[in-house]
């Protein structure tokens, strides 16, 4: 069996430790070691975005990230966003605007959208489309996803959100 290594990191605001195989992906660690299944496997090659997480405030494909490289870093998953009141408006917009169908791409999409809103608060529809170009969705045709994200941006601009 492959070598294991102990790491320590912050996951959704809580410090924790884990012992992981050194060739393991952060995605496998989250799902199989930590037991958080909101982050999805879609391709394992960084081509679909279903496994998107935030690492030190930046969105990454967790399937491309070595679990050992999480050491000392601050990780937020969809479970973290689900428990974060600041992300309520975004998740609510996905529901209200019909941005969810089978829902398999949705957690990664929501995480990427939160990153997009944090880094590009002025993003228009075209910029939003570019921002989620690494997230594949087979059901919705993306239109309602873009509308959902844009609605949160618009609400932010109007000061409708604290």
């Amino acid at each position: 069996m492959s070598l294991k290594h102990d790491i320590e990191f912050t996951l959704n605001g809580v410090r924790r430790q884990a012992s992981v195989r050194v060739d393991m992906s952060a995605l496998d660690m989250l799902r199989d070691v930590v037991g958080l299944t909101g982050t999805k496997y879609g391709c394992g090659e960084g081509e679909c975005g279903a496994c998107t997480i935030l690492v030190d405030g930046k969105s990454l494909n967790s399937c491309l990230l070595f679990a050992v490289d999480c050491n000392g870093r601050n990780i937020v998953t969809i479970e973290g966003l689900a428990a974060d009141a600041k992300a309520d408006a975004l998740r609510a917009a996905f529901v209200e605007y019909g941005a969810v169908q089978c829902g398999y791409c949705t957690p990664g999409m929501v995480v990427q959208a939160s990153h997009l809103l944090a880094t590009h608060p002025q993003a228009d529809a075209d910029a939003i489309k570019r921002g989620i170009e690494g997230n594949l969705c087979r059901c919705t045709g993306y239109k309602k996803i873009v509308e959902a994200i844009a609605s949160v941006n618009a609400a932010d601009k109007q000061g409708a959100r604290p």
Partner: protein
Amino acid sequence: MNGAEKKARFIAPDTLIGKRIPKMDAPEKASGKTRYIHDIDLPGQLYGKILRSTRVHALIKSIDTAAARALPGVHAVITAADIVNQRPIGVAKDHFPLKTDKVRSLRDEVAAVAAESEQIALEALKLIRVEYEDLPILTDPAEALKPGATLIHPEPRQPGGQDALKPSGPVAFTGKPDNVAMRFDYCHGDVVQAEAESDVVVEDTFKLHYVTHCCMGVSGMIADFDSSGNLIMYSNTQVPFLHKREFAEYLNMDPARIRIIQPAIGGGFGSKLDIYPFEVICVFLAQAAKRPVKLVFTREEEFISSPTRQPVLLTLRSGCKKDGTLTFRVVNTLHDNGAYTSWGATTPFVMMQTFSSLYRVPHCDYHTTAVYTNNPYAGSFRGYGNLQATFAVEAHMDKLAEAIGMDALDFRLKNAQAQGEVTGQGMEFDSCGFKECLDTAAERSDFRRKFAENLKNRNSSDPIKHGVGIASMLHVGGGAKIYPSDGCGTILKLDDFGQVTLITGASEIGQGSETVLSQLVCEELGLPMSALTVVNNDTAITPWDVGVHASRTTFIAGNSALGAARLAKAKVLAAAARKFECPASDLDLRGGHVIKAASGEALIDLPRLMRNLHFSDKAELVMTTFYYEPPSSYQDKRYKGNVSAAYAWASQVVEVEVDTETGIVKMTRITAAHDVGRVLNRLGIEGQIEGGVVMGQGYALTESLIIENGVTRNPNFRDYKLVTAPEIPEIDITFIETMDGEGPQGAKGVGEAPAICVAAATANAIYNATGVRIYGLPFTPERVYRALHGKGEKLVPLTAKAA
């Protein structure tokens, strides 16, 4: 406060129909809480993995599993030799889950392992030694028909070998004297006479390519036997009740002992209508290991071993008169079945409807031959052959119009079907908004003006050419009677708190069925959506349904839910009528209350009435059941009959920019007009149309599963290109509400419709832009560039004999 209570309260009428209702399961999905098959683990569960063939066509000389069996953590290693009386699966029963003496395609399952971790299972696969003896490879369907061609399923199956089926067995398949898997021959009228009377005749050959579903959630299942030997399957199937019976047959079990539980499904699109080897193998592994076994694909495996949309070679001959009247169509198609027969082979059922009945065609001949090759096998996929058929038909609608100098839209309007017509194939159009779809899509896109303008600019010096194209489609919208029943059952229960549980046979696969069914029930019972709980994923609980396919769920399950709700309403109102000593007809349900129908005055809230009823002398609960069977009929042996209780129509206008220096086609706008009967959930139906349109865009422009000599060359999202967000066109949707008389609240099915005519309209748009017609898909930059430079693929026409 007593005074206030006595004050009459009036509830204004309201409706849920046509509103934007968020999906009931969306909050869970947006929080990452929804559990898909991938997220479920059972105590004691093992992990299954499949060893697939490394050869395209070969005899299996030997399989050595000793080293794999000896690996610590391995609980079971199975090959065909370990399965007593393995039975073939699939539409033609030509497919053993574990291959016996031969592999016929690169995806073929040779052995399987159950181990304590996925890693150990993968290690064990590497330790299995298989000796092959290569056979000649057959990957060209035209070659497959030639005399002397390598036979994929030669008869009789090897005497005494495992492939030799016992005469007493349940299965008829004993191999084939040739490579023909299925034939379909249909005709109405006299095409020879009609051609002689035509002023213009055109003939072209079209080549439709391999694409695959790419559900974002990869395939997987868990098989678990209880201590009495009952099988519980956690499955992604779209047809749980059909599968319960079929699995029983393949496993030699009593169907009563199989229970199917469906976790949330990460996309269906028709991919989960057949039983696949991995599912049977997972059960075999659970049997062998006596532990629950979970088997989930990798994305690469998903690409390699999933079914594809049916690739088709198609020659169409069409004619019309100078006045624009269509005279005849003759269609010959060659379907590449791949190595085994799944639903792809049967797409002619749908294809011939488009040829015979989308437009009024007085004379029509249709012939399909589906042949075996060593390619991946074709299954069912949203649209079911209709994308392919519509691609050819709509190309000819443009060509014929041009040949007689008639406007493309006028030509279509002249031949379009209308309400009340019965087609040569026996389809009856009780509601039909086809002409309205055509007019609406054309007007909203300014089709005529743009079409003419683009023609003028074809020869301008700008390398970017603009094009606009129109295409339309006909598809079943009221179920499809292809099984002994096309029905769906509903159980409805109202509890003491006015909460309703809707137990339906219809599966949710992301399309929003549980929301629209709840909406229909709430509308009938005057309740808010929050009053509904849906149970729809366990064959031990839910009543029978034929499955999620043929765009049938809103129509069939909707009518079923409505039937149960109406019975419940009658019971509630009867109880209220007794209580308030008035005729039930004076009462209605609204806003969670029993009201006076005339005034809207609230008499009692539903929870209290339910408790009154329950805790009374006659102690009664409101529980109803309903089974809906649509008033459709089977096709006869000549494929004639009214198979659906309603038909959906749509016209779409696609606008493109063609970069003639690179071949890049950019889809800028799609204007879609869909006859959906009636809009129930506006949010949901828009989502279906938008998603379908973009899936159609992928079929037209970017998606192609590249198969070379039986090998899938691009089993990844890097080179199998799904449309990404920046590529989507502007989408304008208009719903034509024809209020179908049989549909629930007037609605018809719409699931498949939006994907069907995008590629056809795109082809017409490229022609409008450039004057070059391209007969093969997808319109990748290189294919378009080659066509623009006279280097397009030359396709050999199929004759009736060849097909």
